[in-house]
Each structure stands twice: as structure tokens, then as C-alpha cells.
């Protein structure tokens, strides 16, 4: 009994659990400039964000009396705290995913995992050391905002319960997202693949499953019975309801369960993912220590045996393909869409995505909402968000991944000109994000045929998608050429999107209010891809809109309602601006090719 207890205590002992890996990671991260830059950028962004919210909530809209302004202060406090909590909630999850995307793959790639296995360090210590060291960085980011939260709480009268629950929900959600990223990093060497897999898994758990469950059970079980269970499993929903309950206490009544139950469930899910990671890390490390280069699936082993190729370490399957056309483009097209997944796996993945889409159609048909423009807006918005993520990450990883694998200098030592390399990389990026956009095209064309979307939406959405692809590919290539690490390039590309389509419209809101009648915010919102997608689909989606004449369509842009011609003009203007910006960034990327080679 004593022995069991002492073993239990040993495992729970933080000093043992974190071990030397934790110490090493902390020492390394304290030397990395990017961590200080990240904290600084986080603080600056947060300060600007709070200032904007405060200006919007208290200062503007005329000159109110002191009494009215005091009354607004408490309202502003709630808005500011809600905004900060949401800001941190999204950002910490994103940072956790990016930070842990190379945590184990780096050890595998540098062949240090096998070396670690020859020391008394075990796989639990490796996994926990990696996770906790990155988590510490995240906690530091959260801690930076604590004084701000405390001050706003005092002046705004926000209950402590909300602040504490918000931070706990944020932390557990970040922990879960981070542990998933760590788990996927065992299987994939490339950060972008890990990030995409994590994002899609989270989207599956947080969006797809709840949406399908609610839709399926809507008629059989009352919403009051299913919603608390879904909220319990979804941190986004939990935080939304907690925030709503600040201003509308009735919404809080929906919470039949307490927030800490949600946190416990999230922690339990994290433990499951980490336990599986520990198991696999050990297997991979032992494989590496025994000299095997990479895991081999049963299917591959069978194919290798059938082909009678080489030793177990040497793998060979599929025919040799001859190089056709420009070689960089050939290589980019030859590579699988997802690294590590061959053609069959990619087709299976695409098949699953199509099947999932068909399931949602079936559920919507059951609920007779496919001809509703709100449903179509939801579909298009989901596709645009997924397409955006799928575009941002491979673009930012296109050159840095070659730098990390040291293939970049070899490519640049050939006489291929920089334009050909740039073109090849751009083709590779477009190819990797094409499946999502093809799904969107298929969806739109299907419902144009069904008469649920007006045909003009095809042209409008094509404009949005093309500028989005060109701009994000250009910016991704630029950051990829400029920076050395994939993680840094991905973070930079995501940050650019957040600033352009999140921070800038918020910044311009108060500026417009100060300028009284300024249109900066509206213009900025009109150039936002999400706003454009929503406006287009809302205006041209649904059975009614699809049946009317082109001139009768009405599009609700921020602050104004416009007809088709004016809408097309806005879309074309945005297209020209962003395509030019994308091409300019790609050209800058080309100029940087030979500057940061090593």
C-alpha cells in the first residue's frame, strides 16, 4: 500500500512530472526573442482593443451628462471584460495550437527522441515537460491581462465569478487544443499539417457534432434537455452563455450545469489525449532508438512485401513518375495534399468531408431549412472560414518547411530562376487549399441548380474566393521567405488576417465616431471576406431571392442596402486591391528568396 502511495505521489510530484525536459524548454524559450515579441504584441493588441471598446461603449455617441456617463461605465465594464475574455479565449487556443505544433516532431526530426529514451526520462515526462513549458508561456500571457481585468472589474462591477470562470474556461480549452496539437505533432513533421489537423478536429468536436445533434434532436427532445449537455462539451458555447448571463440573467438559467463541470470534462478529455500521446511517443522513441526511420502502416507493409522492396526502413510503393513540365510545379503537384498521406488517404479524407457535408444536407432537409438564406449563409461562412485556414497555413509553410528540412539551399543552387520557384510554390499552395474551395463551388452550384441560390452569387463568391486565395498566398509566401521557422510564418500570416479583418474595423469604428460620419469602418467591413460572403449569400440565397430578377436583389452591406450592380462594384474594387496586394507581397517574397537561405 505504501509503495503504491509513494509511486502515486511520485507521479503527481510536479518536480518529477516536469523533469529536465521542462527545464530545458524553459531555458530555450527564455532565450527566444519571439516569445518576448509575442508578449509585447499581445499587450499592445489588448490595450488597443480595450481602448476601442471603451471609447465605443462610454465616450462616443454624443456628449452625455455625467450621470449617464457613470451609468454607462458599468455597462462598459461588462463589455470590456467580455471582450477581453473572448479575445484571450480565441488567441490562447490559437497560440497553444501553433506553439505545440512542432513539440514532438522537432525531437523526432532531430533524432533526439531516441536519445532521450536512453536516459531515465520516460515518455510521460517528455510529454508533460513539453506541454507544461508551453502552457507556462500561455499562463504568462493570461497573467499579463489580470491587472487590467481587476481594474475593470472594480469600476465596472463585473462579478468575480465571471472573470474566474472565463479564465478557467480559456485555460482548459487552450490545454485541450494544445494537447491535440501535441498529439498530432507525433505523427506529422510539418507544423502546418499539425495545425490544420488540430483545427479540423476542434471544428468537428465544437461545431459539427453539436450542430448535427441539435438538428437531429430538435423535434424529438426539447432544446432545454439537449442544450446543457452540448454546452458542457463546448467551451465556445459555455463562454457565450456565461457572457450573455451578465446582461441577461435569463440566459444564465439555461445553464443547468456549472462551468467547473465543463472545465473538469475538458481536463478529462485532455488527460485522455495526453495518455494516448504518452503511449505513442514511447513507441516512436523506441522505434527511433532501434534505428527505424519512420512508422509503417499495415497497408504499406503489405504493399512493400508485394513489391519485394529493400529493408524495412527503406520504403517503396507506387510507380516512379517522370518529371513533366516545369520541375518545381511538378514537385508541388506530385506531393500529397496532406504531408504523410498518400493519394488513397487523401481521397478517403475528401470522401469523409463530402459524406459529412451530405449528412448536414440530410439533416437540413429533415428540418426543411435548406431553402432558407440563413442556412445558406451558414454553409458559405463555414466554407470561407475553413478555406481561409487552409490557405493561410500551407502558404506560410511553403518555403520555411524547405528551410527547416535544408532543401532550400539545394534548390537555390540550381539555375531555376526565382520566378519559376515562386510560381511553383504558389501553385502548390493553391492546390493544397483547392479541395475546400471546390467543395464550396460544388455546394453553390448544387443549390443554384436546385433554385435556392441566385446564379449571380456564383460570380460574386468567385470574386471573393479568388482575391482571398491570391492575397493569402502572397502574404504567406512573403512571411515564409522572410522568416526561418514555419511556426513564426504561420503566426505572422494569421496575425495579418486578424489585424486586417478583425482589429482594423474595430479601430476605425471609434475613429469614424470621432470624425462624425466617417465611413472608414464601413469601408473596412465591406472589404472583409466574411462580411462579403455573408452579404452575398444573404442577398442572393434562399428560395425567394433565387427566383427574383437580378435588379430586384438587395444586399445588406454595413450601413447601407445596395443593388447587384453596386455590390459587384464593391466586390471588383476589393478584388483589384487585394489581388494587387497579394501579387506585390509575392514579388517581395521573390526578392527575399536569396536573403535568408540558411
Amino acid at each position, binding site marked *: 500500500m505504501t509503495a503504491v502511495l509513494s509511486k502515486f505521489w511520485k507521479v503527481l510530484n510536479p518536480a518529477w512530472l516536469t523533469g529536465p525536459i521542462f527545464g530545458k524548454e524553459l531555458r530555450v524559450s527564455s532565450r527566444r526573442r519571439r516569445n518576448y515579441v509575442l508578449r509585447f504584441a499581445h499587450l499592445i493588441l489588448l490595450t488597443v482593443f480595450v481602448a476601442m471598446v471603451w471609447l465605443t461603449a462610454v465616450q462616443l455617441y454624443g456628449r452625455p451628462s455625467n450621470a449617464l456617463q457613470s451609468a454607462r461605465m458599468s455597462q462598459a465594464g461588462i463589455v470590456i471584460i467580455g471582450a477581453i475574455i473572448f479575445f484571450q479565449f480565441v488567441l490562447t487556443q490559437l497560440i497553444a495550437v501553433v506553439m505545440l505544433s512542432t513539440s514532438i516532431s522537432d525531437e523526432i526530426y532531430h533524432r533526439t527522441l531516441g536519445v532521450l529514451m536512453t536516459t531515465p526520462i520516460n515518455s510521460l515526462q517528455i510529454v508533460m515537460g513539453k506541454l507544461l513549458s508551453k502552457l507556462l508561456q500561455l499562463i504568462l500571457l493570461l497573467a499579463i491581462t489580470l491587472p487590467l481585468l481587476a481594474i475593470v472589474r472594480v469600476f465596472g462591477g463585473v462579478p468575480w465569478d465571471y472573470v474566474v470562470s472565463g479564465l478557467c474556461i480559456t485555460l482548459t480549452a487552450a490545454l485541450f487544443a494544445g494537447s491535440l496539437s501535441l498529439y498530432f505533432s507525433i505523427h506529422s513533421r510539418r507544423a502546418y499539417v499539425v495545425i490544420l489537423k488540430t483545427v479540423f478536429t476542434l471544428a468537428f468536436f465544437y461545431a459539427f457534432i453539436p450542430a448535427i445533434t441539435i438538428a437531429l434532436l430538435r423535434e424529438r427532445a426539447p432544446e432545454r434537455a439537449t442544450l446543457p449537455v452540448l454546452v458542457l462539451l463546448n467551451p465556445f458555447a459555455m463562454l457565450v452563455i456565461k457572457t450573455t448571463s451578465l446582461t441577461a440573467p435569463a440566459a444564465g438559467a439555461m445553464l443547468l450545469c456549472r462551468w467547473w463541470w465543463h472545465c473538469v470534462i475538458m481536463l478529462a478529455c485532455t488527460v485522455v489525449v495526453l495518455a494516448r500521446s504518452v503511449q505513442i511517443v514511447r513507441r516512436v522513441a523506441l522505434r527511433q532508438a532501434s534505428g527505424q526511420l519512420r512508422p509503417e502502416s499495415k497497408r504499406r507493409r503489405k504493399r512493400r512485401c508485394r513489391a519485394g522492396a529493400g529493408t524495412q526502413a527503406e520504403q517503396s510503393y507506387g510507380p516512379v513518375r517522370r518529371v513533366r513540365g516545369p520541375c518545381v510545379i511538378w514537385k508541388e503537384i506530385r506531393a500529397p495534399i496532406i504531408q504523410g498521406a498518400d493519394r488513397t488517404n487523401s481521397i478517403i479524407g475528401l470522401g469523409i468531408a463530402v459524406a459529412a457535408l451530405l449528412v448536414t444536407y440530410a439533416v437540413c432537409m429533415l428540418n426543411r431549412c435548406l431553402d432558407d438564406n440563413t442556412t445558406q449563409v451558414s454553409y458559405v461562412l463555414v466554407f470561407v472560414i475553413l478555406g481561409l485556414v487552409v490557405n493561410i497555413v500551407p502558404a506560410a509553410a511553403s518555403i520555411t518547411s524547405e528551410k527547416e*528540412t535544408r532543401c532550400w539551399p539545394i534548390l537555390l543552387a540550381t539555375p531555376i530562376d526565382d520566378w519559376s520557384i515562386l510560381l511553383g510554390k504558389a501553385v502548390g499552395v493553391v492546390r493544397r487549399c483547392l479541395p475546400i474551395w471546390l467543395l464550396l463551388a460544388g455546394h453553390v452550384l448544387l443549390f443554384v441548380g436546385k433554385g435556392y441560390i441566385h446564379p449571380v452569387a456564383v460570380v460574386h463568391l468567385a470574386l471573393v474566393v479568388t482575391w482571398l486565395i491570391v492575397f493569402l498566398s502572397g502574404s504567406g509566401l512573403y512571411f515564409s521567405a522572410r522568416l526561418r521557422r514555419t511556426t513564426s510564418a504561420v503566426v505572422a500570416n494569421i496575425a495579418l488576417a486578424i489585424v486586417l479583418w478583425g482589429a482594423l474595423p474595430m479601430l476605425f469604428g471609434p475613429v469614424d465616431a470621432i470624425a462624425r460620419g466617417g465611413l472608414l469602418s464601413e469601408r473596412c467591413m465591406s472589404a472583409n471576406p466574411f462580411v462579403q460572403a455573408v452579404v452575398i449569400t444573404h442577398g442572393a440565397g434562399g428560395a425567394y431571392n433565387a427566383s427574383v430578377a437580378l435588379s430586384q436583389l438587395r444586399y445588406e452591406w454595413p450601413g447601407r442596402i445596395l443593388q447587384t450592380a453596386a455590390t459587384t462594384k464593391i466586390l471588383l474594387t476589393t478584388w483589384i486591391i487585394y489581388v494587387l496586394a497579394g501579387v506585390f507581397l509575392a514579388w517581395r517574397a521573390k526578392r527575399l528568396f536569396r536573403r535568408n537561405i540558411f
Partner: protein
Amino acid sequence: MIQTKRLTKYYGNLAAVIDLDLTIEEGDIFGFIGPNGAGKTTTMRILATLLEPTRGTALINGLSVTKQGKKVRRLVGYMPDFMGVYDDLKVFEYLEFFAAAFGIERRRRKSIVEGVLELTDLKSKQNVDVDSLSRGMQQRLGVARVLVHDPKVLILDEPASGLDPRARIEIRELLRELKKMGKTIMISSHILSELEEICDRVGIIEHGRMVFSGSMEEIISRLGIQNKVRVKVLNNRQKAVELLSALPQVRQVQTLDDYIAVAFHEGQTGDGIIARTLVNGGIDIISIQPEKLKLDDAFLQLTKGIVH
């Protein structure tokens, strides 16, 4: 074929290469040696057009590596010290990709790649995924890659690292073959005995400065090393030392372990005199062996062993 004049490269405040003057004649194998961090890799990267020098000029076949980079790249086959390989490509595809990158016509590529695979003994691996090859095999593939466009100049940064003894010997033989084909080869390695055997000339670099460049004979002359012989005798060692010390050609006689080291005055030799003197003195000789200067010794004498 390769010429640098006052070639200098700074990384921030750190001087990696300072005023490097280097000349490599066509068809030569030039061994580039120096301690870690001496500036070998930086020099090679500049010559491969991957780095811009801070100042100075570097010419390959009369072409400037900074101004005529694309033309230079066609002439040069560069193999870096740590070679990356593309995932998901097979050995044949990898080589054909680079053949295409160097602008070789499609109809000629297959035979060229097959020839190179044959030359580097990788024929049996042509259908294997590149990233599943062992380190040594990947190194061989690197050599195959630099040969695919038949370059006039080969710049090989540690090509033998990670190779087993057999593969090292094979690489050495391959380099000799390439020399016969008229290639100019610049090679860096830490295994000096290997360079000694294949190189026509060597360059020793330390702290970014070339401390010596020339043939092995020039090193001997530069270091002022006289001819030496090792004498092993069966009996009466002390008497043998006395007899040899009395010879006018001999400058110094030392007794070491199981042999006697005899150093002659500059320009003097005398294996025959030694043999005659010892036999006449009634001493039985086991062996008389000339002592050659090794590159390792020259390297140790010429460098101070301090790294940046």
C-alpha cells in the same frame, strides 16, 4: 577555374572569412581544411552563389558568383554539409527533378539519371523513397545529385561524413574518376588522411584567413621539414646511434620507442650511407623507412586550434 580575391564575409560583427585569396586550377582536386568555424562552409556557400560576400570577388571559370549567379550555378555542383531531401519523392524522381532543374531535356534525362545511379551504386535503390534511405545512402544520393548536370566544378562540403569505410573508399575512387574526367573539385573534410591521398593541393584556413595554400611539397618547404628516416636495428642500438651521429649528412639522431629517427641536413639524403655504415659497424638492420610528412602533422603545425 576558381579564384577569389580578398574575399570577405561578415555575419554581423563576426568575421567568417577575411581577405581570402584562393586559386584552384582546372582539373585539380583542392582539399579545403580547417578547424570547425574556420570559414570553410561560408567560402563554399559563397562559391555556390548562396551567400553574398561582404567584399572581395569570387570567380568561377571567369564568371562572377555575385553578378553572373545563374551561369555559375550551371557550372557548379554543390553538395552542402547537411543535405536535405524532399519527402515523398523516390530516388529516381529526386535525381530527375534536379536534372530538370538544371535544364536537361526530357528525352536525355532518363539515361543520364540511370548513368549517375550506376556510377554511385544506387541503381538498386532507384524506386525507394528518398527520406527512407539511411544517412550514408542519402550522402551517396547527394553525390549523384551534383553529378546529374555534369558540372565542370564540384564543391563538396564534407561529402564523406556519415559514410562507412567501404563507402568512403568508393567516394575516394569516384573522385579520382571525376578528376580523370577533367572536373575541378573543391572538397572539405575532417579526415585529413583521405584528402592527402586524393588532393593535388590543399588550403588550410583558420579564423577566416588562409594560413596556407599549395601542394604537399610546398607545405614541406614552408614548414622547413627535412627528410627523415626511421631505422630499426636488431642489436646494439646505442652503437648504432653513435655511428649515425658521426655521419656528416646527418643533422640529428633521436631514439624513439623501438626505432631511431635520423634527420638529414637540408637537401641531403642517405639511405645507402646509413645501411653501409650500420652493416660495417656489425649492426643487424631490420628496416630503414623514409618518414613522410602527414597532412595531420602539417595541419597541427599550421593551425593554432582556436575556434571562433
